[in-house]
């Protein structure tokens, strides 16, 4: 939170602390500019960014020549390298598009050509036998496959948090529970009326995700309309993880986009998403009908999967617009850049988007001079199963016995990790934030064993009452 005086004029205000807003904050933190990020919710990455398929895309199936294609393929490498440096969990599982009928089979060659147009040449068409050899638990009726070796899985929560931590440590201010209600420009300064008072900045970036067309409206533009597209997902028990080795992708056809079956870096298996346009940007409920559809599809793709226990179900909203491409534009002379219509590929593209937007700002006249000391890359808590988790880290436990005290048994989250996540910069203030920083409560028992313990501990560490933490008021 900022302690700056109310008449402070920031160089740049970013609306939205999702993966795009935080990537922008991180990018701008490298320069000698003052930056504030305004977020309507209580945490970073708390909207679209928290509920997706957690895939690091190569961009092989983007629309060739689109801005999205350029930024995804670039972002893939940027984020891959950053994740490595910051200790964000990534697994290079590869992807496998599986064709189940003639139409899909016939599409594979054109998908391969499309991948090449997107700058990705490593795909390979596999015979049914080769597909089955690689993924023996696939259902009956496999016709062929397209291997996309670069497709990977990533921890989306650590990604957003790493960007935000790096930015905050370098001096970027984050204002939470801050909803922007109007934007006026007076003498070259944007005056933002918010639920927490006025915020002023010379430059304004709209990274408001589902609300990006609303914010665009506040700035008197009407270039696109976001229609939230709901994607429901089912998370299966970790005991299902060995059923697949790679991301099992559908072959998109005229009729249907299909659903995927993907491992997660936490060791679970995801089934989804559905794709339904909704009106309400808060409609993140799963539906009986949507879940039934996923089970029906899942039973064909990996029949054994649907026999395993379900650990969680959730729905995310993607910021779909009437256009195929990202809606990123600088408005000349207005010191305003809109970064809207960033769809599900936004996680992968985030760093490239930030770099691209910095370029637009420069072109528009914002001087971006590199700081003498570039901000340090943060060292993220290891949340991935392929990383050395704290409970398996003998040196960490010897240094700090709280890393040997497991609190959440299903996810093996230690007391030390809960403490780390709730203290310091951008510490967790609610259960959702704690879940995303530690995985606590995300496991198969959903709190049967540790629910009371975790809430009591978070209350003690955050100073917030258990009633406030569980929505019963303060």
């Amino acid at each position: 939170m900022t302690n700056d005086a109310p008449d402070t004029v920031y160089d740049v205000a970013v609306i939205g602390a999702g993966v795009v807003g935080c990537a922008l904050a991180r990018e701008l933190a490298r320069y000698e500019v003052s930056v504030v990020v305004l977020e309507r919710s209580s945490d970073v990455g708390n909207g679209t960014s928290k509920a997706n398929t957690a895939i690091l895309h190569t961009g092989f199936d983007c629309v060739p020549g689109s801005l999205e294609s350029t930024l995804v393929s670039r972002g893939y490498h940027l984020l891959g390298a950053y994740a490595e440096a910051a200790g964000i969990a990534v697994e290079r599982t590869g992807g496998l598009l599986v064709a189940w009928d003639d139409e899909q089979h016939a599409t594979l060659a054109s998908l391969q050509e499309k991948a090449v147009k997107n700058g990705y040449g490593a795909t390979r068409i596999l015979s049914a036998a080769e597909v089955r050899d690689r993924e023996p638990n696939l259902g009956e009726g496999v016709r062929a496959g397209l291997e996309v070796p670069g497709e990977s899985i990533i921890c989306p929560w650590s990604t957003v948090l790493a960007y935000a931590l790096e930015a905050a440590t370098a001096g970027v201010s984050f204002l939470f529970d801050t909803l922007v209600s109007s934007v006026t420009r007076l003498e070259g300064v944007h005056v933002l009326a918010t639920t927490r008072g006025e915020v002023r900045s010379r430059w304004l970036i709209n990274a408001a995700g589902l609300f990006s067309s609303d914010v665009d409206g506040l700035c008197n533009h009407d270039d696109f309309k976001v229609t939230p597209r709901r994607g429901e997902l089912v998370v299966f028990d970790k005991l299902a993880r060995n059923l697949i080795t790679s991301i099992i992708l559908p072959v998109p056809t005229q009729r249907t986009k299909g659903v995927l079956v993907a491992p997660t870096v936490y060791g679970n298996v995801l089934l989804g998403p559905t794709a339904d346009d909704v009106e309400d940007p808060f409609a993140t409920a799963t539906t009986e009908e949507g879940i039934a559809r996923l089970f029906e599809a899942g039973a064909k793709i990996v029949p054994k999967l649907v026999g395993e226990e379900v650990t969680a179900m959730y729905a995310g909203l993607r910021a779909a617009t009437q256009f195929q491409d990202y809606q990123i534009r600088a408005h000349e002379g207005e010191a305003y850049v809109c970064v809207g219509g960033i769809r599900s590929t936004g996680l992968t593209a985030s760093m490239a988007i930030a770099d691209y937007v910095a370029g637009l700002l420069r072109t528009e006249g914002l001087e971006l001079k590199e700081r003498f000391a570039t901000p340090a890359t943060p060292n993220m808590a290891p949340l991935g199963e392929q990383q050395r988790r704290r409970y398996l880290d003998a040196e960490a436990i010897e240094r700090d016995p709280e890393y040997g005290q497991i609190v959440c048994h299903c996810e093996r989250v230690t007391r030390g990790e809960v403490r780390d996540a709730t203290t310091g910069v951008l510490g967790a203030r609610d259960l959702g934030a704690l879940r995303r920083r530690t995985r606590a409560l995300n496991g198969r028992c959903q709190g049967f064993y540790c629910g009371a313990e975790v809430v009591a501990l978070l209350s003690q560490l955050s100073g917030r009452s258990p009633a406030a933490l569980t929505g019963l008021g303060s």
Partner: protein
Amino acid sequence: MTRDDKIDCDVLVVGAGPAGLSAAIELRARGVQRVVVVEREAQAGGVPRHCHHTGFGLRDLHRSLAGPRYADELCRRATASGVRILTGTTITSLENNGDARATNASGLHVITSRAVLLASGARERPRSARLVAGDRPPGVFTTGQLQQWVNVKNLPVGSRALVIGAEHVSFSAMLTLRHAHVRTVALVTDLENQQSVASYAFAARMLFGVPVWTRTRVIAINGHERVREVVLEDVATRKRRVEAVDVVVFSGDWIPDNELARRVGVEIDPGTLGPASDVGGRTSVASIYAAGNLVHPVETADVAALRAREVARVLAEDLKRGPSSSLFEQIALRVEAPLLWVWPNRVERAAPVSRLALRAKAFSESRLLVARQAGEEIARERVGKVVPNRALSVEGAFLAAADLGRGPVTLSLRA
């Protein structure tokens, strides 16, 4: 202990609930020297620690104790008999030769043993595992979570609750809610009747004004910051309605905590979802045994304790004799709907068959249990009233006529 400490013992017991502790005590009584019980919670005793009602220990200790007293008593007896209990310690992996890795505040450890007894218990399926759609607000509990919430941590629960389920544990959840000054609107079951004893349901209605809504299914939970309402459906008419509550407790619907068993490759019984095992707790892996609600999800604590003692007696004998009989010499017992599971679900050829515990998932008019083998009926026996989620059992002598050399035996209910 120091870092990467090695612990060697005769039997490693995983889980210090009633089954694990009772087995450990029995192993010591049978002359097994080094018995180590590993418990991941900070305190030993298992689920009874959170259950403040009385009635624990009736059949095994021959007294009626409140849950925490019962847990303390088992811990006391275990310690007095020379059992070593390691609390706050999690088994993180298990090899099929019985070697285990563990983590606790003093570091990482390797535990070697002659045999491992898994007694990791069972949990209630949470809302997600029951595929109840909707939002994901706070205010959704399982009974186990609720009991710790109220009885251990004294956290605020809410004001109006629906309890999903209408079996023994569901009424227990209602009492815990009452203790926390939460009004239970109803117990909800998709079955045609409640499944506890009639007097519980009668008392709930007459004393507390809590009805049981039968033939009612939970479809979804709505609410953002907090549970706001639950969508219910009449199973017969499919008519839906909405009930405004801020607490939902999912009770019963048990699943064993079988992760270690599955990861080590122990054969899993399709009914219990716990390790397939005989009355001696022998599994498909020679050095790995199993007991308690991990193998029969769930029996009351005292029954789990008594059956775990039986397991311990066999295990102690096996340790004297050498490796246990393998599954090749065992016959599988299977069940057909509406039966849900049977335990023991493996029977040793030569040995007399012990008492069989059964569970049903639906009501049945039939009380005739029929055993078939190789397509032929081999035995039939009248059993007690078939009520889902409630204990049902039959003497093992029922299977005396079975030729245990002729493959799996299937149990079903016949009109």
